[in-house]
């Protein structure tokens, strides 16, 4: 069954076609969300929202573009919106935490330092650094870089999703890589 047949089926009110659409694309949506969120349970929540939006606005979808392009686009937007909202929440929480600092015990801090000595945590620390560096990129660089490096999409696919020229996408990814390199190295220079 082609995507257009699926869409027509859903619009005619047949539920089984929507189930098939979800079955076909849930891995794509879930993993795209996870590429931005780096958290399985958040990615599952956002993937759910993506499909709800798909269902509710399918009648607006223009069939000349690919369904997967549209799904990637909604996944990216929803993930970034979630991150933005979450930042606001975290900011409020960090203010609240200022008043609770005395509750952190000294033993906890010592434990954390000791843990950093083994390689598994070194790996975890580097992964955190990498995610932090990518999330610090300018938004369009972040989207293009993430779709290229985490989702292994071609520059052409990315240009369709972001509605930009191939040249712009190339430029964005090039600059993103330069920035990623600069930030990772400045971190290592600081720690050594």
């Amino acid at each position, binding site marked *: 069954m082609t995507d257009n047949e699926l869409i027509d089926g859903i619009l005619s009110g047949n539920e089984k076609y929507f189930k098939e659409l979800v079955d076909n694309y849930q891995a794509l949506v879930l993993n795209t969300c996870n590429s931005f969120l780096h958290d399985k349970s958040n990615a599952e929540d956002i993937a759910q929202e993506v499909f709800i939006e798909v269902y509710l606005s399918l009648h607006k979808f223009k069939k000349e573009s690919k369904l997967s392009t549209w799904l990637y686009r909604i996944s990216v937007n929803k993930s970034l919106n979630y991150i933005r909202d979450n930042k606001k929440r975290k900011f409020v929480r960090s203010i609240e935490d200022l008043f609770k600092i005395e509750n952190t015990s000294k033993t906890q801090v010592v434990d954390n330092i000791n843990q950093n000595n083994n390689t598994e945590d070194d790996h975890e620390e580097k992964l955190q650094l990498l995610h932090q560096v990518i999330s610090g990129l300018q938004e369009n660089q972040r989207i293009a870089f993430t779709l290229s490096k985490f989702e292994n999409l071609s520059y052409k696919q990315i240009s369709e999703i972001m509605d930009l020229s191939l040249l712009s996408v190339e430029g964005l990814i090039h600059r993103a890589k330069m920035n990623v390199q600069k930030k*990772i190295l400045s971190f290592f220079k600081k720690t050594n």
Partner: protein
Amino acid sequence: MKCKNFHKKMIFYIDGELTAPENSVIDQHLKTCNDCSLLFSELKSCYKLIENKETLKPNPFLYTRIKQNIENIEQALSLKELKPVYMRIIQPVLIACLLVTGISFGILLGNSYDNTPQKNKSIASTNEFYMNDFQSEELEINLLNE
């Protein structure tokens, strides 16, 4: 090759985006420059972690959850659509009905009041009082909602 030039190209070297001659120059520099070689291995150990990204398997309940959410949304939407209809059509009709029944009740009670024997008069008038009170309250609520 200068160290500065090498720094500019490291990440593209890791991603295999350089030409063969560029690659060999970099290889050469890595062998001869200790500082750059150290820097390079640090960058690579971090940057290469992108490739370790795990592929998630979809939750088997995903579709059920989506369907449940859509049903909730559609229910909320249909209630919203019902509201204006209620306001514009059902409510005036309801008020009119109440008015008609109120008036006819009043006439009926007025007639029965005339026919009531003298000793039951006080009971009839208290009934009348409660009923009229009830009706005007209903009307007030309806008018407030409008």
